[in-house]
């Protein structure tokens, strides 16, 4: 079989081939491994390939085809490198965890395995998920498969690029301020950030605990639904995980019901700086939805401008504390020093990259006595206002539609020297993350061969409605899943 045949595949399609004995899990794993070997020297989506174990696991499965296939049976999955995988390195894209091999699986990894998935490898990311381009990886950047000169977005750039280039059928990412949705938009794939608390964070290396949420990156919305069913649900190991049963596809409204919903368009998400093509494409789609009978209303989220600023107070504050454990004492990198202080200093100086250091310093500052009220506390108050904005807006409509990003995938090196410019890339994804509400990015078209992401935001635990509209849109737009040529300029 040729991998290109899988271009439009859902998990159900693979399962059909398995059942018809036209494909075995081992053949499938081998096909993806071949694809990775062929393309990943250019893309650099993977930091670690779990080749031997994946083949062994696939072989075992190939020998024992069950009558009833568990939801992800036999399917390889790529996992962002900040999600702990037992006996498989988990570096977070950082030098400081270069040799770290967790002795345990994250809850999401356990659930993937239980559902029959096979771990293909670990994907590249901005160090500790801090960044929007994957350029902050200590192991070199990932390239956008649509145009290798451009970034795939970040921080889950490796996961998004691998799914985009069909090096993996789907992947896990993590989203703190947009790290799943923005790279999904840049790579033309589907990226879901569920409600905070929908999926357990146990085993996900913390960046900003009150914002971190596991997300999925898939080639179609249908697979997102399947993954959310597998991954969601209460976990006794995570106090912040909601005590609700797993998501079920029965929560998704029918297309007829979707036609009756009201979609809000927040005016603050169409600022002057928005890339023209993106704004226009979103407007076109809104018109199409109107044509389908869906009511479109304008809404306002007045504190949008402050969301980004408060995010860069709250997230670094939590990060400064979460990253304190990388001190060279128990695991990871240690650079010997003249004394304890010196060891700490040398280890953290050498082990952390520039952006991570920048955020540790920012966060340490805003938590310091004398500055706490002025920064951290104020940041948290603004966060509440941002949340209230969404509550108000979502009283007037069921879901919100916005662009995922203000710009198209940019060139490597273009924004890395200007952190503020880089931060602005997440201006549309940060507010819903601050509010803890679900949102999804899906491809809605191309501009000069580069994908444009459309962003849907919903109320807390209303993934059903969110995915309902995403499925509906996917059908209306009828765009083929990406299969880029992987070369140094865009495809069209």
């Amino acid at each position, binding site marked *: 079989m040729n991998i290109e045949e899988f271009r439009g595949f859902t998990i159900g399609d693979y399962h059909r081939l398995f059942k018809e004995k036209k494909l075995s899990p081992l053949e499938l794993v081998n096909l993806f491994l071949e694809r990775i070997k062929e393309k990943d020297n250019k893309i650099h989506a993977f930091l670690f390939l779990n080749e031997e174990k994946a083949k062994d696991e696939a072989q075992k499965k190939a020998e024992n085809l069950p009558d009833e296939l568990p939801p992800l049976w036999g399917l390889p999955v790529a996992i962002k490198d900040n999600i702990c995988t037992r006996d498989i390195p988990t570096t977070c894209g950082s030098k400081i965890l270069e040799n770290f091999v967790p002795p345990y699986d994250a809850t999401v990894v356990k659930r993937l395995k239980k559902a029959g998935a096979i771990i293909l490898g670990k994907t590249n990311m901005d160090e500790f998920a801090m960044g929007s381009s994957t350029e902050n990886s200590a192991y070199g950047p990932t390239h956008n498969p649509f145009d290798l000169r451009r970034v795939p977005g970040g921080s889950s750039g490796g996961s998004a690029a691998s799914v985009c280039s069909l090096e993996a059928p789907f992947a896990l990412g993590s989203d703190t301020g947009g790290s799943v949705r923005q790279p999904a938009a840049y790579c033309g794939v589907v990226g879901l950030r569920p409600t905070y608390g929908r999926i357990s964070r146990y085993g996900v290396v913390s960046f900003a605990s009150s914002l971190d949420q596991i997300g999925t990156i898939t080639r179609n919305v249908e697979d997102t639904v399947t993954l959310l069913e597998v991954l969601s649900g209460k976990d006794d190991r995570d*106090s912040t995980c909601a005590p609700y049963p797993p998501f079920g596809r029965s929560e998704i409204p029918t297309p007829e019901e979707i036609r009756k919903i009201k979609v809000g368009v927040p005016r603050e998400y169409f600022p002057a700086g928005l890339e023209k093509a993106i704004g226009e494409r979103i407007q076109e789609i809104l018109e199409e939805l109107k044509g389908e009978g869906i009511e479109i209303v304008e809404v306002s989220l007045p504190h949008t401008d402050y969301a980004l600023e408060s995010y860069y107070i709250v997230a670094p504050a939590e990060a400064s504390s979460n990253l*304190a454990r990388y001190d060279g*004492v128990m*695991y990871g990198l240690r650079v010997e020093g003249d004394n304890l202080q010196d060891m700490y200093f040398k280890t953290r100086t050498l082990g952390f990259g520039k952006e991570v250091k920048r955020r540790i310093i920012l966060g340490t500052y805003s938590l310091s*006595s004398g500055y706490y009220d002025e920064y951290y506390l104020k940041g948290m108050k603004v966060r509440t206002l941002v949340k209230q904005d969404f509550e108000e807006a979502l009283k007037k409509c069921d879901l919100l539609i916005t662009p995922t990003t203000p710009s198209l995938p940019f060139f490597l090196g273009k924004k890395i020297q200007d952190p503020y410019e880089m931060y602005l890339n997440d201006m549309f994804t940060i507010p819903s993350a601050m509010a803890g509400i679900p949102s999804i990015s899906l491809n809605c078209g191309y501009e000069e061969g580069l994908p444009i992401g459309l962003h849907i935001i919903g109320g807390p635990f209303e993934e059903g409605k969110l995915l309902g509209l995403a499925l509906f849109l996917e059908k209306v737009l009828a765009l083929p899943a990406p299969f880029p040529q992987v070369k140094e300029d865009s495809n069209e």
Partner: protein
Amino acid sequence: MSNFTTTIGLEVHCQLLTKAKMFCHCSTDYIGKEPNTLVCPVCLGLPGSLPVLNQKVVDLALRAALALHCQILPQCVFHRKNYFYPDLPKGYQISQYNLPIGVDGFLEFYSQGVKKRVRIKRVHIEEDAGKLIHEGMSLPPDTSGVDCNRCGIPLAEMVTEPDLSSPEEARDCLMMLRNIVCYLGVSDGNMEEGSLRCDANISLSSSSLLGVKVEVKNMNSFRAVYRALSYEVERQKKLLEEGKPIFQETRHWDEVNGVTVSARSKEEAEDYRYFPDPDLLPFSIKEKMIEEIKSELPELPLQREERFMSEYELSQGEAEILVQDKEIADFFEDTLRDFNEPRMVCNWITTEVFKNLKELGITISQSKVTPAHLAELLKMVDKKEISGTIAKSILEEMFVSGARAREIIARRGISLISDEKELENIVREVIEKNPQSVADYLSGKEKALQFLIGQVMKETRGQADPGMAKNILIKVLSSEE
């Protein structure tokens, strides 16, 4: 020379008696365990691990807070206390800050016979850190190891207001606090093993303003608390009298040399950057739970002490000694059920029972002597079936062998001398044999009577009751005149 008032406040940490650690399922039974054998990704703070609160920790701390008459806040929050140290795997300690479990309580206790009250500022819960090991563990030279068995063990911190005015008071307050947590089953209160730790803040002043506060640490027994604070009083008094400044600092008690030593200056105090732990949700304590725990609180040491004073007519000192150990107080009351002579039972427990326990190096719960067995023995003494001296030696054997008094008496062939006539015969024999002593006694030398009593006891191989022997001697001697 001016008079100085001493002001002391205590910060007491006690290990809460839970089977599992505060945020994971690891065992808390770390004493004598190999380093790093009671650990998991959570208490080691491995990347990705998350804490989940052990509800039992809240229950126990709540019990302590309520016993200390604290107000329970409707919503409690865990904060992170950030600092770097190798025994702190996460680089922060999960603790409580401005929303602890209890605030504004008080504690009453007796000090030198006078009832005192100290206000309790707060009761909060936090996790313990690990322990640095400087030798063993097959460490290379000049290196230290970290034992994380203690990481994540639940602690309650109880902070008093600076209401204590002497080292004695501080010690007595701490003893009462220890008794309370033991009575509640909240902690085993063992200072030597570190399950109860006490730091003190102490200042001296000759005016109504408070003096400069010095923090004293590393006091590992009640005696150490008393000695360290007494040392500080003298040290600070001397400085003030000489017009020298007192620095705000932390000082460590050096038990061996009996001095406090400056540890670090508070001026360069760390900024712990407290903030609410985003991994743990705020928790609220329901009124119903408070009521439930309140209704289940046992009789506390002070109540019991005062009941012993009124019900059994014991002195405050006697009552205090008994209630200091809940098991002793229980033993005392259990003995009274079979032999209702409080004063006599109290005397025997606080002298003979204590002596035997000390010699055997055991606690009352480990002893082979039951309250019923002690009551049986004391009844025989009371009926003058055996002498006190004999009873003491029988009790000793009871503690060693676990046999009951009557068995020991039978085995030793001790005949019980309760017959006054028989004793009178022995007395007459003794009088006959010791004419000189009799003469001395009759000429007014009281000492001679003691000698004669001793002789009677010798003749009876201690089986006579010395009181009875004395009475008979006096009676017979007076008829000699």
